[in-house]
């Protein structure tokens, strides 16, 4: 991964198995950063509009063998790095990513793809300022997933690995393998281990404490002027809000 670029922005990422609570915490961090006046760009795993159609096609038709699974996800990631993450970091904003290269490392390695090859394949990725790994007991994360979403998708349950013909059983084994792989990644790449059994508030406080020192010198955006203009014009600004709290009513 590249850390030689000297970019003015900051990149924070979360990792962990499904049901580890990482998205909840990243969402809270996102809102906090905005409330502090930082410009924040958010990037989600597997969301590139260019690659999405191919991923969908592969999943629907079950065309994805371990290597095609790996290459298609790498394409999706590369597309997001070049069109979203890198430009935002160059511009000096905070970038938050829900899952990063470590998700690919874990998922592909358990499918038998060479770890050394994966490392080199993803050498174009920008090294995050901080990477959080949400560590949850396997049983707890599986309970959380099963509680809300009983119908598991084919690849989500790791059914392509033929671990079990029962989707739930397959999911359990698959998540266990992924968790095991994450353990070695935490050591290799110095991910910050978050105890995801702590209360949500504690976890968020710890995240903010760790993120804060990295924010010095990062660009802030003062949207105050528009509020003043709205007040002067006797308007509330309801029609301007983008629904993500970027422009709260004054």
């Amino acid at each position, binding site marked *: 991964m590249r850390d030689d670029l000297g970019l003015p922005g900051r990149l924070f990422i979360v990792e962990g198995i499904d049901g580890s609570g990482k998205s909840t915490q990243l969402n809270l961090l996102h809102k906090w950063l905005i409330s502090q006046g930082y410009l924040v760009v958010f990037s989600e795993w597997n969301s590139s509009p*260019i690659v999405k159609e191919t991923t969908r096609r592969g999943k629907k038709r079950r065309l994805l*063998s371990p290597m095609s699974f790996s290459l*298609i996800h790498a394409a999706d990631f*590369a597309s997001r790095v070049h069109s979203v993450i890198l430009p935002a970091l160059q511009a000096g904003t905070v970038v938050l990513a829900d899952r990063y290269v470590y998700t690919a490392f874990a998922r592909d390695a358990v499918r038998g793809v060479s770890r050394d090859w994966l490392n080199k394949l993803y050498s174009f990725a920008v090294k995050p300022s901080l990477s959080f790994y949400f560590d949850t007991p396997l049983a707890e994360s599986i309970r959380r997933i099963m509680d809300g979403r009983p119908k598991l998708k084919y690849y989500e349950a790791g059914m392509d690995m033929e671990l079990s013909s029962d989707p739930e059983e397959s999911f359990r084994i698959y998540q266990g393998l992924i968790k095991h792989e994450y353990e070695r990644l935490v050591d290799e790449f110095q991910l910050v281990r978050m105890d995801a059994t702590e209360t949500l508030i504690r976890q968020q406080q710890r995240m903010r404490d760790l993120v804060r020192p990295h924010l010095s010198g990062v660009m802030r955006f003062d949207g105050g002027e528009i509020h003043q203009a709205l007040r002067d014009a006797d308007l509330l600004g309801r029609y301007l809000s983008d629904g993500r709290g970027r422009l709260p009513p004054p």
Partner: protein
Amino acid sequence: MTELSFYGFRPPGIEGESLPGRLIVIEATDGAGRSTHVALLKEWLEDEGYAVLDTGLRRSDLAGPGIQRAKGGHTLDPITLNLFYAADFWDRLERQILPALRAGMVVLADRYVFSLIARATVRGVSLEWMEELYTFALVPDLVIYLDIDVEQLLPRVLSSTGFDYWESGQDFLRGSNVYESFVQYQQMLLAEFRRLAKRHGFTVIDARRTVSQIHQTLRSVVEDVVRGMEEWSTESAGMEQVHVARPDKAAHAGHDGIDLTRSERAAPSE
């Protein structure tokens, strides 16, 4: 037989040591006569009784349509585009080429990873990254390079498709003169191909001659590679082999790990 050896690592899900078919690759820039010679070789081989699969780039079920769409919009950065190509290549290797080799066919590949590497490196993608990316590729039994210069290429391109956007490098070369872009791009590409030919020991064939002359030369090199196939039935796979091993392959038997010099026959045939 085709030894199941890969440039770097064996991809997951690929079993076995050898396959009864043969993988023959023809590399060249567009307009050098690649598809003409693939067609002629196919005709000849089938006439001789060999079962032949011909395959080209961007024909996979998985990523083919996605690449066409993405190229239409000219929206992709080179890394993403090359990962797309790699997914397409792998899909074809896994679902077309390997099954055909397993079934004992001669696979004629109209371009292979080397075209992808050459086109990417002239666009500034690191050669090291590209070669590492394709270490999952199967080492072919024979890689033929049809060698040509821009001067001979020009009339052929003009009389067929004209100057294509991508084949003139207009996606990355600045300037609006299509002719100059074409010449500049093809010169860069040809230099890259020649470098790869030397590095990986391609069989270089002079493609400045007549189609008929080139075909005769191709036949003789291909004949060496397919010789002995009739003695190796699919049923005997995994058993003691009785066919006459080609000496160049035998010399490499039992070898694995990274060795990009394995597409043998370094000496140009002309």
